[in-house]
């Protein structure tokens, strides 16, 4: 059964940095949101935690594309992560979580797991 989720508002359009990422805090922990205005869709969200170092830094990596795939490079050890799938291009056994993201008016929303309290309430 698919766990219950909800669309959490995490920031506004003004917080985004074109061609780069920002970090937001969600109920699931830190998430990196990237805004690539020259792509469609232009918004991507993946876990902010770099699986190789354990540090919360992925939003501070350099974005780009490799063979057409949108990627971010970890600022610590420079591995590339696909913004579409979260898979590490250098080691496909490593993968970071990706989050559905949408623009709702001026709000950026992420689909995150609903926490226990809300699940019970729902």
């Amino acid at each position, binding site marked *: 059964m698919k766990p219950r989720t909800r669309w959490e508002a995490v920031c506004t359009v003004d917080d985004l940095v074109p061609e780069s990422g920002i970090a937001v805090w969600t109920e699931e922990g830190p998430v990196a949101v990237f805004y690539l205005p020259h792509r469609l869709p232009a918004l991507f969200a993946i876990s902010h935690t770099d699986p190789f170092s354990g540090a*919360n830094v992925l939003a501070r990596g350099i974005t780009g594309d490799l063979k057409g795939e949108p990627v971010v490079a970890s600022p610590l050890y420079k591995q590339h992560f696909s913004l579409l799938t979260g898979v590490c291009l250098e080691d496909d056994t490593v993968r970071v979580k990706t989050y559905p993201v949408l623009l709702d008016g001026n709000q950026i929303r992420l689909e995150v797991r609903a926490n226990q309290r809300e699940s019970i309430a729902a």
Partner: protein
Amino acid sequence: MSKKTLIVVGNGMVGHHFLEQFCASPAAADFEIIVFGEEKQLAYDRVHLSEYFGGSSHADLAMGTLEWYTEQGIQLHLNEQVTGINRENRTLETPRGSYRYDELVLSTGSYPFVPPIKGNDRPHCLVYRTLDDLDAIHASSEGARTGVVVGGGLLGLEAANALKSLGLEAHVVEFAPRLMPVQLDADGGALLRHKIEELGVQVHTEKATTAITEGEDARLRMNFSDESFLETDLIVFSAGIRPQDALARASGLEIGERGGIAIDNHCTTSDPHVHAIGECALWEQKIFGLVAPGYTMARTLSSALNGDRETAFTGADMSTKLKLLGVDVGSIGDAHAQTPGARNIRFNDERAGHYRRMVISEDGKTLLGAILVGDNSHYDTLLQYALNGITLPENPETLILPESQGGAPALGPDALPETASICSCHNVTKGDICGAIDAGCSDLGSVKAETKASTGCGGCTALLKNVVDSELEKRGVEVSKDLCEHFPYSRQELFHLVKVNGIRTFRTLISQHGKGHGCDICKPAVASILATCWNEHILATDHVPLQDTNDTFMANMQKNGTYSIVPRIPGGEITPDKLIVLGEVAKEYDLYTKITGGQRVDLFGATLSQLPDIWEKLIAAGFETGHAYGKSLRTVKSCVGNTWCRYGVQDSVGMAIRLEDRYKGLRAPHKVKMAVSGCTRECAEAQSKDFGVIATENGWNLYVCGNGGMRPRHADLFATDLSDEELIRTIDRVVMFYVRTADRLQRTSVWMENLEGGLEYLKQVVLEDSLGIGAELEEHMEGIVGTYQCEWKTAVEDPEKRKRFREFVNAPSQCDPVQEWTVERGQRRPVLESA
């Protein structure tokens, strides 16, 4: 049809190589193979025998494994000596039985020659050839203080090295007037002797030992013909080798006058079913005491047993390149100029300890031989000239002169003919390498796997890489100089595109001259180029996403995602008040504090959101950013200079501050470090910097392109006795020329090494203005100096830019949960371990 039997007697390097070759050939299917080895170990690398005392075991030195022999179906009889051959019945005898053969291969090698000296059979008189010999030497060294090697040849010096590594006081006694008489001449031998004596090995030449008797102060005494004597605890004889031909001799095979089993061009003896290879074999009255010719014989014989009568052994090059006790020694071809009409060119630098001699033909066109002592870097080039008969340049002496004296660069791989031998161990020619590349090998690794080149002694590694790179490049495979998949240009080409077309943003550049959206390679490189050309703030909206995180947040990211902060302390000079502010800020934010190698203070552990607050306080106290995060000028280190030091001749601190203030913030292909020393004592270590300045009585000496770190490089002296203004103008030009022409992430040291024409060319461009760009370079630098801004000052004053420093944009009070701390030696440090 039942299989025939092939027996190999001797399991040394050459015997093993023969088995490798033969087992991989079609004829292997027709034979049962039996191998007899006298030693108890499987074939091992005798060339590196002395490493046995350096900690290598038999397993490290072994040529093959027992599994391999089993897989090949070889019957291996180790520790079993063959005692006789009956050629009529085609059988051979060992203490354990009698074996029939159809084809017999003798690879029995050689034995050490022990001169007929009275007393040479006393205890502690040993030889140096096998692992068992080494074990005996080791046992004898127990309780010994001194050891003597009799014989100053190649093996003797190896043995001396072995004695030295056992902790003995080592002596070498040589009958001839110099060391390595076969390979070296008088000057070369003298230099080698000097170098070896410096290493603590005592050399005694022109000594003929007459008797070995019991010693008074040591176990043994060697008495010499000149009435002198030497006392020692053990003696190792290494006075040459003799072919191990006893079996062959007893069975009536043809033997040379001075020993050796006579063979023809196909390595077959006087009996068509008996063959001999390696050091036991005599070809045209010559014994080859090196491993490479032995390997060639092994291959020749394997071909012959496969019915190939074309492949023939036609002699071998006896050139050698080795490191004896850490000293480079090389000898090529006719080193003693025995060819009629031969002429010599000698270069002898007794100060640096380099000796080089070229023997050239009467007409001056070909290299006949060479001798090198102290530095083998010229060996590969000289060997190629000699082996391939390549016509010498008009001034052949340039081949052995130091490069700074106009010496010629190494022979390019293009100049080598197809037949040029690249790897003599495995007989791989340039043609073979080209063949492998044409058959699909596209990198060094696959060429090595395919041809086996450079998998023997490894001496040809550098040459092989040059040949492979050059051939790949010719085929368009390159060795691409493209920056990345988005730009088919080098950094230098992109620099010109930006400059010439006045391009000011990454987006314009990639849409006009590249493809895709960029990556972490091209974005920072272009950001650096844009910064050099236009010097706009690195946090200008267009530039933010191009930067590495360190540039974006103007601090150095550490392993747990926090940052370190390095304020600029020009020349390392700081007032007590400013030092107190650093302490107060560090205390307030609980920052781990460390003094850097560049005379600054590094504050660790600041979170992203703390950075602007911390910098506000630092700027208020008069600090500026130190650019420790940037590919730009780091520090200008200095000693205290003539304002305090009684030896100083100029104000080194003043000059360091002036240079640091001038070049701070300049974006370069990589970081740039400088230093200024106030006198020739060089306390600021300027010669290990990209730009080093050393004071003289008359001004300043400038050194360029030095490096510390991973690959240290001494800086080159560029100009002397410069005035303050001349110094700055010269540095301006060199820095700008570097910024414009270097590759991405190329330090000045590597840039210099790759600059065509090297130091001389750079001098022409900068000091003589040979390209006519001197004024332009200075003007460009002036423009950059004039538009300097402290990036942190601009950032903290701009609320929009400060917004970038929010750790989580929607939760300002949220701490990063992985940033946990512990305390060590009174300061905080992260507990985060790599996942």
